[in-house]
């Protein structure tokens, strides 16, 4: 595997970076470009921007800030939120994003994944999934950016991810919803079964609170680990985290 990736996740709402707890009560954590620059300078390996208002409100992601981010950082970044057709994905990539990540729109119309992969290649298409443990296994939720509209999508997480990667998604971001913003560790059991179910890289999301949580995610097969709260609140500094991982024998980019 390449060096394991540390990926700060920036939720974007109305042009600002925000953070909620279990997808609710979002508070402002600053300017998009300032945050991107800070994380890039601190050694983040990649960034993910979720326009959390785009999907539930039925509108597409605004591309002006994507171009501003692309001009200043020299690490890759993905954009998610409201990408429901080729034209929107093309606009996002043309603004300078390296990957597009689709979630609710792909659940509504799975062929979207095939279309994106055919046009841009699998390495450009990320499938994001919000997964929640329920009776009978983990199930997929949709429109999670808006608590009023979010509901269960009627699919088992493993089935959906097998289908999505067969259709051409080149990476999975697995977000375990009950873990979001809670900081008691990634759901490694679920992570491990997803890693075993697909052949593409899997990024763990939801629950990071301490350096050992990142270590556990990597030991359970994650190619990258995504976190927001611990980085936004400066509870973990990325250089310290990488030092800790290296000391524990996990390859990271120095």
């Amino acid at each position: 595997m390449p060096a394991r990736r540390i990926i700060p996740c920036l939720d974007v709402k109305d042009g600002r970076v925000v953070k909620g707890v279990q997808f609710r009560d979002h508070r402002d954590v600053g300017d998009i470009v300032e945050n991107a620059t800070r994380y890039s300078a601190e050694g983040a390996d990649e960034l993910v921007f979720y326009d959390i208002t785009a999907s539930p409100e039925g509108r597409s992601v605004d591309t002006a800030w994507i171009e501003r981010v692309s001009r200043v950082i020299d690490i890759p970044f993905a954009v998610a939120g409201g990408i429901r057709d080729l034209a929107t994905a093309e606009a996002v990539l043309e603004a300078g994003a390296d990957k597009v990540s689709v979630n609710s729109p792909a659940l509504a119309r799975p062929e979207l994944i095939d279309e994106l992969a055919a046009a841009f290649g699998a390495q450009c298409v990320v499938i994001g999934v919000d997964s929640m443990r329920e009776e009978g296994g983990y199930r997929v939720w949709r429109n999670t950016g808006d608590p009023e509209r979010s509901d269960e999508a009627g699919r088992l997480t493993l089935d959906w991810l097998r289908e999505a990667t067969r259709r051409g998604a080149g990476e999975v971001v697995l977000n375990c919803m009950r873990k979001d913003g809670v900081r008691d560790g990634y759901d490694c059991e679920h992570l491990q079964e997803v890693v075993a179910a697909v052949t593409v890289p899997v990024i763990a999301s939801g629950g990071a609170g301490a350096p050992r949580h990142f270590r556990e995610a990597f030991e359970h097969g994650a190619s990258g680990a995504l976190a927001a709260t611990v980085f936004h609140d400066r509870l973990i500094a990325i250089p310290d985290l990488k030092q800790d991982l290296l000391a524990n024998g996990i390859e990271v980019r120095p």
Partner: protein
Amino acid sequence: MTLAIVDLDYGNIASIRHAFARLGVDAEVTADADALRAADRVVLPGVGAAGHAMARLRERDLADTIRALECPALGICLGMQLLFERTDENDIECLGLIPGRVRALQPAATRPIPHMGWSALSLPDPAAGLAAGDYVYFAHSFACPDGEATVARADYGEPIPAALRQGNWWAAQFHPERSGAAGARYLQAFLEWQP
């Protein structure tokens, strides 16, 4: 200096343009054959699928122009793969400037495909700003044959040509525009290169 980026419609053209802008060079994105022939440097980009990219080049009658370029030229990612004769991706014929066939990487238990992320160079290319131990960013499912043109290499279950040189061409499988300081050094070395 005039720097032209071949306009394939789809692809990571903006991120490459922005990377050169950080080095003080304003690139022109163009599909005009005369503009490409007149440029001091040409970049053949590529995020995208090989089939789409070659179809674009043929539609715009650019394949011959690119083959005939004499100025220093740089292929990035898919742009590197297109320099070879054929690719497994969509099983199509490419530009044929370098012999060999681009092949699909095969997944293994600890090697998901695409090969996505930062890998260290096992064979560095100091002349191109790439030092031993540098990590650069890859995002690809297909790999070029490892041959005489290879000047930098990474490993992913098999040797992965990370950079090559052939005649007036440089090419990188990794993304120098998104590879931090090492990537910036590589692009700067390309701008300064005098064949």
